[in-house]
């Protein structure tokens, strides 16, 4: 069972549908017990970092996620959900993240060629930095769908794959049982579904 964390942020329709489509059992929940009983945790997220991080703290779900991460349960953050795994974000100020991964989230504005459009919207190719079980069913050069204006930096120790958009844009990160995708696997066609398949097969690290 995968617990898709519901903390009042973003649209969960496609994430739920994609797990259903690949035959993985998943439930949308904000109940700490259900999250503790799940085999895997998916942290979704669309919107602003500050708002999302605040909602996680207010609901107390941040502590639940930290405990489960410590216990070795596979956790996958998507888009803003991935960004929140890092130490901090500089989206409109400076905000604390979950600090499960080393690194921070910074604006693309000012960091990349000003002629390029921001947000970074569209399909971009994955370039692999190191091997990881999440990549089991996909290959280097496969395209995934991005929609974002901020990206993770100083995260060399967890960097699994990146995409080129003037700079190397962090795409997949993983450290032990804690993983994240900047792009939307639920919107990346068969490639994205294959990433979710690999995640749905992962076992806890004891």
């Amino acid at each position, binding site marked *: 069972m995968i617990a898709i964390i519901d903390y009042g942020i973003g649209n969960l329709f496609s994430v739920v549908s994609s797990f259903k489509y690949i035959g993985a059992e998943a439930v949308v929940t904000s109940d700490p017990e259900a999250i503790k009983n799940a085999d895997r945790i998916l942290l979704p997220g669309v*919107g602003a970092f500050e708002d999302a991080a605040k909602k996680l703290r207010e609901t107390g779900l941040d502590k639940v996620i930290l405990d489960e991460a410590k216990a070795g349960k596979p956790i996958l953050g998507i888009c803003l959900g991935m960004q929140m795994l890092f130490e901090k974000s500089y989206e409109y100020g400076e905000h604390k993240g979950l600090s499960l991964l080393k690194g921070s989230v910074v604006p693309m504005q000012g960091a990349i060629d000003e002629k390029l*459009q921001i947000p970074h919207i569209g*399909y971009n190719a994955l370039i692999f930095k190191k091997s990881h079980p999440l990549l089991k069913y996909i290959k280097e050069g496969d395209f995934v769908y991005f*929609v974002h204006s901020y990206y993770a930096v100083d995260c060399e120790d967890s960097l699994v794959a990146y995409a*080129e958009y003037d700079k190397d844009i962090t795409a997949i990160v993983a450290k032990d049982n804690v993983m994240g995708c900047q792009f939307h696997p*639920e919107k990346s*066609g068969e490639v994205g579904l294959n990433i979710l398949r690999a995640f749905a097969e992962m076992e806890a690290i004891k």
Partner: protein
Amino acid sequence: MITKRIIPCLDVRNGRVVKGVNFEGINDVNDPAVLAKYYSENGADELVFYDITASHEERRLFTEILTKVAENVFIPLTVGGGINTIDDFDRVLKCGADKVSVNSGAIKNPNLITEAAKKYGNQCVVISADVKRVDGVFTVFSKGGRENTGMEAISWIKKCVELGAGEVVVNSIDTDGVKNGFDIELLKLVCEAVNVPVIASGGAGSTQDFVELFKEIPSVSAGLAASIFHFGEVKINELKKELINNGIKARI
């Protein structure tokens, strides 16, 4: 680098795709769910659905169909047609749409763009503009191209982006249906005016028209078309191979 996107557009009325479609191996060519799946498996990068119904009853049917599509198709879906209020945004997003395209609704009430962008993010709000030359001036038309608003198009589109639109669909009424190529002159002006993705619409008649579009305007993000895809005159996978042969990035 990101690839150029190829986007088929489906007009839906009374739960069925209108204009008909002609594909080998598909029996029910007017079923939006069947077609959406076909397109997503054959190279479409996104899909746009236009709800061209009028009644509430048919609108309810549209959202049911949209739900069915979104449960089985995992590429970005944009929905347009009859979007006039935040409740309309809410209605289609709950059914699995990723982006919502506004046209006449934004002309009537430009604040709708800002309101929606604040609630759902800029990436969710697509401004769609129907543009026609009137006495040599690019002019915005509303109500499906029937009504001249008197507004100059480039400044209107710029304003929409300032209000929070995250993407622009430019549909040239002058080239639409002519199948003689996109409106390069108009699209160039829009691409120079805004720094959000611009989707070209209206006029595609062949693979070569897409090659010309992306070569003439490297900053344009996507090409949208309907009948040439529906009737199989252009196959998306073959079109993308041709783009790549011409040094244009495409997802295969």
